[in-house]
């Protein structure tokens, strides 16, 4: 059992009175709490060794989980604010509701699971870790995702996306399932992959309208292995039907060139 007193030196009593520990689960009531206080609280609690945290009554607090760098599961009830999990490096965030814009901004490691929808620029500049969204996402999702050596971010969208999906994408993998669409209907996502120069977008069926500089290809064996892993995890988080998801033709969208704008620069 963790010593609540240890935290006293770091946090004022007012914040601590919003925290309860039950069965090794740290429960925070964030009603009316400023995001900076909430994030200090998370930092202090997780660095004191908490493994499971619940935050209740969340309503618009920004940057939840930012810069946390250890393995801790944080369950969020309510509507977290912009840049959920920004720069996060290890935790697992589970949102029981919808998230807003900039979810997973530049996250480095860890996982975000959203039982609902997210807004624009989800996965913005993501450089590692995984994001699973049960329903739809907004504009410019996965903009400038990137990869380096072993770090390959993954983003799975259960529903549909809006325009500029994977804009300037520089690495990592995205999987879009279209499960919220009526049979045979496509996403209204135009300009997909505009400026993309690395990484891959997998679509289930014919969902997306491609931007310039991208092409569509059939998936290979390795692609299918990755799709199966992601789909299996998606189903385990959201209780979805794996057979139904896999009973479709998958295709991949990749960039034509590694340097699409080289003609626009003199060097």
């Amino acid at each position, binding site marked *: 059992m963790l010593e609540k007193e240890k935290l006293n030196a770091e946090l004022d009593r007012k914040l601590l009175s919003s925290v309860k520990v039950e069965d090794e689960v740290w429960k925070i009531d964030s009603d009316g709490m400023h995001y900076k206080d909430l994030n200090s609280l998370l930092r202090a609690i997780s660095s004191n060794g908490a493994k499971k945290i619940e935050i209740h009554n969340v*309503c618009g607090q920004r940057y939840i989980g930012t810069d946390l760098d250890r393995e801790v599961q944080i369950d969020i009830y309510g509507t977290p604010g912009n840049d959920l999990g920004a720069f996060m490096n290890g935790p697992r965030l589970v949102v029981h509701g919808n998230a*807003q814009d900039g979810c997973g901004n530049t996250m480095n490691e860890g996982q975000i699971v959203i039982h609902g929808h997210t807004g624009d620029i989800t996965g913005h500049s993501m450089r590692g870790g995984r994001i699973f969204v049960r329903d739809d996402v*907004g504009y410019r999702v996965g903009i400038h995702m990137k990869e380096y050596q072993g770090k390959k971010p993954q983003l799975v969208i259960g529903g549909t996306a809006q325009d500029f999906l994977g804009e300037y994408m520089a690495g990592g993998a995205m999987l879009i399932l279209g499960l919220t669409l009526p049979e045979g209907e496509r996403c209204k996502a135009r300009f997909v992959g505009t400026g993309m120069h690395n990484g891959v977008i997998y679509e289930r069926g014919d969902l997306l309208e491609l931007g310039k500089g991208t092409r569509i290809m059939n998936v290979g064996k390795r692609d299918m292995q990755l799709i199966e892993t992601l789909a299996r995890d998606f189903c385990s988080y959201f209780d979805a039907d794996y057979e139904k998801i896999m009973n479709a033709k998958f295709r991949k969208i990749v960039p034509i060139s590694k340097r699409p704008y080289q003609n626009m620069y003199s060097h």
Partner: protein
Amino acid sequence: MKNLGKMGNIYDDDKDFSGCSIFGMMNVEGKRFSPRDPVKAIANMHERGNGLGGGFAAYGIYPEHAEDYAFHVMYLRRDAKEKVDKLLKGNFEVTLEEEIPTREANVQNPPLVWRYFVQPNKRKPANQTADDYVTEQVMRVNMEAGNAFVFSSGKNMGVFKGVGFPEDIADFFCLEEYEAYIWTCHGRFPTNSQGWWGGAHPFNILDWTVVHNGELSSYGINRRYLEMYGYKCTMQTDTEVLAYAVDLLMRRQQLPIDIVAKILAAPLWSEIDALPPKEQHLFSALRQTYGSLLMNGPFSIIVAHHGEMIGLTDRIKLRPLIAGTREDFAYLSSEESAMRLVSPTLDRVWYPRGGEPVVGKLRSREHVELLKVVEAGK
């Protein structure tokens, strides 16, 4: 700007960056409600503003003067009032004038704010509509009086705005005294123009109001175009052109909102080229005719007038907007959390597509549906 850090930045960050916040709430049965929820919602997006502007538009607040134009006037200097009184009394029958009730609040340098309930007098030319006459006189006061600005001029509605956070502006104007069936709200983070009382949102002419998050790089060309129709921009802020543009297009030229959306947030030429010939012809004609009313730059806006609340973003959605409904209420917001704070459950909640208007309409005005998402060009 010296106090910016103190007002918006309680933790003293060395960099303070944000965007404006917009929020709209409408009862589609026309039932009036207090500003408690709208103020709570806009205050929840406190981080998006910096205390250099906040404001509200409220529809249905003056039922006892429903047929009079309600002028809200701010006097930056006391002597300006004499001139305005003269101008107003010369051109209108003033049925009632009074100071707008205010109280001490956390706002900066409040001006004197006054309201007049008026009807055009016999000086109105017979061939001019009352609305056109009022528009002309409002422009005149704003240009001629100096240090006096009519910031609200519609019937049975009013704008309340100033320099401060929206929740403080609500406090200053004693908003809890009013009830409206549409409330639109704004928290400001000025980028290219100064924070002053006239520059706060909403912007208004007659009963048209606009709150805006973003910036209009086309302000110069829009302003020159609108001048040809008698609109004088005096508020030193880009958003002012939007209020006059919707008045011109929707009131004077009677264009429907789905067409107006295609003027303000015109489809890209590449999109027009891909449309069927008839639509291609229509959208090209709109771009050619109204090129100067294209709003260039990122924006999300809430436009309101009696009976309608409209949300719209630029065509590639560079600013946030989310819509929701719950029973008889329609909501528009920069962030979902603000809606959830006042309505934890929603019947429907969605992110509108760029350039496509979301319209909340009064049920009684023959439009039966609660919300119509216009998806032209689908």
